[in-house]
């Protein structure tokens, strides 16, 4: 996979002809400046102190944010660029989350509407997008919002560099991803020693359907579990409670509940 990519711009922007050719990434950054708040922020952070290389990475990270809310643990920008490349070069907008499809289309269409023609040049080369040849239409992925989710996850990181978040491996899907989490919940999780433990995370999930995958997760709370061996757990229980459990006639109870055949 390539480390760099280019977006070729031709035509006019605000009536001013763009010099045909391949834009340097720094110039591209200037052109894209103002298209979104994220780009503005990144540009401001880079101002004055960054090299071309860090600007390139910065732009990649911007596009990565546009491509998906989940930042991959390794090489996040590459994943983001790869998905954008699929969308632009092969017309497969499904490679992007619905929200990201909208952001990508909005950003590019604003330049196209001003008269520019755009072409992505990376590992693959996209068609030239213009008013006559617009970007591929956004396609629905099929999502399902769950307001009261509880997901078992192994917590790998609590807190984030920019926004409060946690990073975890989710048991239900095997995904390792970041999830939004308020500062107060992050602090509580840290104080409760949740790092590297399996905890139940409670909150709102946006699922991608078929196959089921977590698209976004907004963590609102958590539950910590007993960490010892299963065989030791019942010894921690109150004697009266264990006596109550012992009093259950299991065969009769299960027959009452579900007509269970226990033989």
């Amino acid at each position: 996979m390539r480390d760099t990519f280019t977006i070729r711009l031709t035509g006019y922007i605000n009536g001013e002809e763009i010099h045909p050719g391949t834009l340097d990434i720094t110039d591209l950054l200037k052109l894209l400046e103002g298209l979104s708040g994220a780009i503005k922020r990144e540009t401001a952070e880079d101002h004055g102190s960054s090299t071309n290389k860090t600007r390139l990475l910065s732009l990649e990270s911007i596009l990565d944010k546009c491509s998906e809310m989940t930042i991959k643990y390794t090489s996040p920008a590459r994943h983001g660029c790869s998905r954008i490349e699929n969308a632009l070069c092969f017309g497969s907008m499904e490679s992007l989350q619905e929200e990201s499809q909208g952001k990508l289309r909005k950003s590019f269409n604003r330049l196209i509407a001003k008269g520019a023609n755009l072409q992505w040049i990376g590992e693959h080369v996209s068609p030239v997008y213009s008013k006559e040849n617009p970007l591929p239409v956004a396609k629905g992925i099929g999502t399902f919002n769950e307001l009261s989710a509880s997901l078992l996850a192994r917590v790998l990181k609590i807190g984030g560099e920019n926004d409060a978040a946690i990073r975890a491996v989710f048991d239900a899907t095997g995904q390792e991803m970041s999830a939004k989490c308020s500062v107060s919940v992050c602090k509580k999780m840290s104080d409760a020693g949740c790092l590297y433990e399996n905890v139940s995370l409670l909150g709102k999930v946006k699922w991608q359907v078929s196959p089921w995958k977590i698209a976004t997760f907004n963590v609102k709370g958590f539950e910590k579990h007993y960490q010892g061996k299963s065989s030791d757990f019942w010894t921690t229980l109150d004697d009266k409670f264990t006596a109550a459990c012992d009093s259950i006639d299991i065969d009769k109870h299960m027959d009452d509940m579900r007509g269970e055949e226990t033989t």
Partner: protein
Amino acid sequence: MSVVLDTGALIVFLQSNCKHGGAEAVERHERQREIMLSYLDGQKSPFIVPAIVYAEFLIGIPDEYKEYLSGLPIKFRIAPLTERVALIASQLKVSLMGSKQIDEIATTYGQVTTNVRADIFVLATCKAEGNKLLVTRDKPLCMRAEKLQIRCSHIDDLPCGGPKSSTNSLF
């Protein structure tokens, strides 16, 4: 890798002494409990208890102890019956017997309608949790799980020595 416990299996886990059913039942309980603990000790994740299973368990104990576990860090995770589980349950019902109604399915298995409904919610939770292994004492439930390609094991058939470690485990 977490496993999902059905009601009978949860009671076997929590019940240290079986006091009912005579010597044969006590012997079976002890054997099943030994198998389960041997199996569950091998895993680091808490095991999963569907909310409907937890409800069935609570029905079996006196009122004064019903809230006792809620204050403890418990070894099992109570998986709530969420919107997604409800959606999966509705899909499983269709997969299970096509257009047949729940009472027809129950008749097929010689059970009452409510039992089948409970089973479907247990199976839907297994699927929602990532198709986890369901551990049960209920043979008809095993048959239904097999038909829906949901992993299920009767307690007696659990392998000794615990589950294989998860590929997600870091330590």
